[in-house]
Every structure is written in C-alpha cells, then in structure tokens.
C-alpha cells in the first residue's frame, strides 16, 4: 500500500516510477508462421497514484503489453524482451512462483468482458475471498465479511445476497463491479484495466469509469488504462500514450494531447469521434485503411499508408520517438502544426 495519496499527476517529477517499462518487445513465434512482433520497443513509466492511458485501435499491441507485464502471455509461442521494473524488480525475468505471489497482491488486472472473465460455476463471494485467502492468509470464514465489504464498496446493492450469487445472476455492470472488487481486494499499488467498459452499455460505462476513478484516487492506486476510446482517456488519464503498430507514436499529458495533437494518427483518432454538437447527418471522418496496410517499422513509418500528410521520408526511413522537455514525445517526420 502506498502512503502517498498523491493527487494524480502532481508527482510527475518527484517520485521514482512505480512501474518502468523499457524497450518491451513481444514477438509471437508460432510454428509454420512468420514471427510477428506485436509490441515493438515500448517504454513508459507509471508513477504512484498516476493514471496512464495506452490508446490505440485493435491490434496496436496495447493488450499484449499489459499481458506481458502481468506475465499472463501463453507459456509457449512468444518471446518477451526488455524490462518491466516494478519497485526495483524486473517482472519479466521474475520466477513464475514469485510472479504468482505478486499478481493480485501488488498488481491486479481487470478485463474487457465481465461475463466471460468470471468463473460461471463459482459464487461471486468465493471468487473474491479466494484472493484474500491467497495473499492475506485469511481463512475463508474471515475473508467473507471482507468480501461483503468490498462488494459494498464497489456499489453492488444487497452484497449479502450477491456473495452467494453466480455470475449469470448479475447484470453486466454488476459483474464488472465484482471484478473490480476482486482486483482491489488486496489493495494493489498498480491496477491494469484492459478495456474495462467496452462490453458495457454507455450509461454503465460512465458509472464504471466514475467508480474506477474514485477508487484509485481514494487508495492511491496507480492505474494503467488500456482503451481504444479517447473519451475514456479524456475523463480519466493524467498521461496518454498513443500506440500504433506496436510502437508509441505520441505521448503527452492529457490536456496537451487533446488541445494540440501532433501526430496525424492522434488527430485522426480525435476527428473520428462522433460529436453531438456537430451538424446533423454530417459524415464521420474515419482514418482510411486498416492496420493490415502497415509498413514494417524497420525502414518506414508504419502509419504512412494511412496518413493524411505523408512526406517522402515516411516510406524511406523509420522515425524515432523524439522527447521534449515538457514530457511530450512524438514519432513523426511531418507532425501536425501545434495549434497553441
């Protein structure tokens, strides 16, 4: 548990990072197929109490990044390189049983589809108590009132009854709340949320995001929010990393990034959000093409074929991630003009 109940974002320069990911590279090596690099040299920091977003469309490597940090990638068929230092320990080289001790206690995770993420044949209460039994050496009996308390805290009404309910008896929003309760049971210092609201109704989405925000602020838990939804980022994150083709293409604090996006991919993502105040019937502006059009990063910008303003260099040379002093970073030869 962190004693630091730091206001998110206020500790950018002071604290040591809680999690420091450096040059993370995940390559899938399936038999009979060409190796595929899903995450290609990703580096970012998460400070205590901070909320960091990893944003990008499907296939950009954001989920694989989180699974690699958690040590939850399949045992075979992939290669993980780089480091993910959590409080001085590299998680990527940690022994399997040591990693088991940390998962659920120091780092927890919530997933996209709350129904399929819950065991259908085990009561909700049991799925909460098992974490406490495992990491807090509690008996099942002692853990039950704690589990009740947790369900209450995540806003599940009538928690006594819900303890013995099975996942199929809960609504989608309740299920995600239950998963959050399980993840926060041992007061982890880092929570990774992988598209936690994608499978939910829009109204429920807002509730769940509000709950997450409240809980991490209250407990000082750092949060890595993985999403394709810039709306989620706008409401929650202190710092945003935009991923494309397995690499970070732009990074910045939330307000700066939204106020003046520099990478054409980021501007594209922002432009493709439908607006309520826009003209009625006005067509959406999607980013043309799909990730299937990507060029290899080795000697080009992977985004070039879909870019709105490519220059010659984009298909001849690989752009580097350039950092400025204010914590912004950009990987682009021809960035969008800063508006401010």
């Amino acid at each position, binding site marked *: 548990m962190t004693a630091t109940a730091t206001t998110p974002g206020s500790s950018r320069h002071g604290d040591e990072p809680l999690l420091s990911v450096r040059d993370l590279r995940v390559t899938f090596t399936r038999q009979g197929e060409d190796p595929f690099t899903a995450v290609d040299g990703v580096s970012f920091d998460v400070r205590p109490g901070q909320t960091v977003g990893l944003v990008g469309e499907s296939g950009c490597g954001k989920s694989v990044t989180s699974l690699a940090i958690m040590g939850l990638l399949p045992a075979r068929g992939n290669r993980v390189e780089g480091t993910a230092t959590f409080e001085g320990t590299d998680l990527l080289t940690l022994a399997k049983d040591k990693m088991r001790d940390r998962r659920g206690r120091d780092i927890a995770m919530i997933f996209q589809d709350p129904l399929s993420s*819950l065991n259908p044949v085990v009561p909700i209460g049991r799925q909460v108590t098992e974490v406490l039994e495992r990491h807090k050496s509690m008996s099942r009996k002692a853990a039950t009132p704690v589990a009740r308390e947790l369900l209450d805290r995540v806003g599940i009404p009538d928690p006594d009854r819900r303890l013995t309910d099975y996942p199929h008896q809960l609504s989608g929003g309740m299920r995600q709340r239950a998963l959050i309760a399980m993840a926060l049971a041992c007061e982890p210092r880092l929570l990774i949320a992988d598209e936690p609201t994608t499978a939910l109704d829009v109204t429920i989405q807002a509730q769940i995001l509000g709950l997450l925000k409240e809980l991490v602020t209250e407990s000082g838990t750092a949060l890595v929010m993985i999403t394709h939804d810039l709306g989620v980022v706008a409401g929650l994150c202190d710092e945003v990393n935009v991923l494309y083709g397995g690499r970070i293409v732009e990074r910045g604090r939330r307000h700066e990034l939204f106020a003046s996006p520099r990478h054409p991919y980021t501007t594209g993502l922002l432009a493709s959000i439908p607006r309520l105040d826009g003209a009625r019937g006005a067509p959406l502006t999607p980013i043309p093409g799909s990730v299937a059009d990507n060029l290899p990063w080795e000697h080009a910008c992977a985004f070039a074929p879909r870019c709105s303003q490519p220059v010659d260099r984009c298909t001849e040379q690989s752009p580097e991630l350039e950092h400025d002093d204010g914590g912004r970073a950009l990987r682009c030869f021809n960035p969008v003009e800063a508006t401010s």
Partner: protein
Amino acid sequence: MARFLIRRLLQMVLVVFVLSVMLFLWLRALPGGTVSAILGERATPETRAALTKALGLDEPIWVQYGKFLWRALHGDFGTSTRVLPGADALDIFLTRLPATIELSAFALVFAVALGIPLGYVAARRANSPVDSGLVILSLVGVAVPVFFLAFFLKYQFAVDHNWFPVSGRQDNLSCTRITNFFVLDGLLTRELDCSASALKHLVLPSIALGTIPFAVIFRITRASVLDVLGEDYVRTAESKGLTARVVRGRHVLRNAMLPVVTTIGLQTGLLLAGAVLTEKVFNWGGIGNALADAFQYRDYSVLQILILAAALIYVVINLLVDISYAIIDPRVRTR
C-alpha cells in the same frame, strides 16, 4: 427441482412403455421362435400347436401384450423357457445383476481413474509428444474390437503367463454369499481371500470392458480442458495470483468436468446394458451372458426383462447425470 424431477419421471415412464411395445413386437417378429427352440426342427405340427397354445402364443399379439403388461405391472415377468427352465425371469435378472454391476463398476473405475488425469495432462501439453502418444493410444482404445481385446488379454495374461484367472468370478473357496457382489461379500464376512480372489478375476474383464470408456473419457476430458484453458476466467484466476493447484482444481477442472460427467453417465449406461461380449469371453455370470443365451434360445420372458431393465437403467442413469449436472452447474439449476 421437484417439478423437474416429476417431469423427468413421467418422461421415463413413457420411454419405458414405448420401448416395451417395440420390444414385444420385435421379439415376436424374429424368425425361429420359442416353440422351435424348445421342440427342435422335427416336432410334429400337433405337438407344436399344443405348445403354442400352452404358451399362449396363438392369441392375437395385442392380447399377448396386454397380458404381458398386466402381469409385468404386478411384478410377474413370466417364466424362463430355456436359460434356466422354470425359473422366474425376474429372479434370473436379480441374481445376475450384481455380477454385471460389479464388473461395470470396476471397468468404470479403470476408465475414469486413467481417462481424466491423462486427459488433463494431454491438454496441458497439447501437441507435445506426450499428447500425441496419448491421443494415438486412445484411438487404438476405441478402435480395437472388445472381443479381440478380451481374447488378447485372456491369452496373454491368463493362458500364456498365468498371472490372472482365465474365467469366472471367483475361485471355488466356498465363500458366504450376502449381496452377490463378491468383493463386497468377502469384506462383509471377513473372508478376505474371497475378496482377493474376486478382485483377481475382475482385472482382465475390467480392462477389456473399460478400454472404450477410457478412450472416450480421455478424449472428452482433453478437449474440454483445452477449451477451458482458453477461457477468460482462467486468465482472471491467474491474474489474481492464485496457486496453480487452485487454478487447476476450482477454475479449470470444475468447468471442464461438465461434459465429462455426461460422458461418464452415458458410458455407465452402456456398460451395464452391454457387457455381452466381455461377459461371454470371460464366462462372467452376469446379465450380458444371460442375454446372449436368451437370444440364442428365444427365451422371450428373460429377453424382455433383461432388455427392459437395461433400458430402465439407462434412463435412470441419464436422470442421475442431469441431477449431478444441476449440482455442478448453477446455470442449469436456475432454469
């Protein structure tokens, strides 16, 4: 749950009734017939007619069925004409049932005790040499005909090596009989040598009879565990840092067992109802053996009760499977 049970019980009655009609018609449509079987080919038409009348076989078929049904409902399934002439058909069934249950139980233990662990191991190491080897073994297991396997085991391990007895259920030890489950009787009367002898006699027939169920249970377990291992909730369990033992038991196996339970139930029904070949080869005094004899000699009364009982057992086991399903899977319970 009560409504579910009542509905299922009514279904069972209907199934058994329909089956009894079909069985009755089918048996009497078989060539040959009781009269020829008893009197032989060279009987005079007069003696044949007399016996036909005595057995009531000259009456219209629905009258025969009506009489059969009426008597059956009163526990009278007729008298054996050939398997054990003059004996009550129901008695024949009841004295032979324990032998078949005992054999089926051991065959099932063999199949489950090997099938589930090996299925789990194969799934965990999918596509490894261990997995491939086990899959091939299970394929051989389903493919080898039971009578061949039974004879093979018998000659290899009983005749050639003399490790196990050739046939029968027990050596002649003058054992006390209580339940007719020989292993159990030996334990109850503390005649442990009787139990030991019965166990030795059980080994080869159990393997012969249990090989197909083993192969089926193995394959279903493997497929089911593979499915469950890819489920999101297993990843959730891992993300909670639960020990490998808890992940395996509570999260993987408990879910993977759902289809396996069904399979075990169906296989049990098949074992109890259809151990004919194994019982024949090992001269096992059970239902399968009696069924074969009854068929050969057109012993209608015995055939009818054996086949109806087999059907009833099958249906009851299916009901038990459904109930156990409801116990393991809460999603079924609330429906």
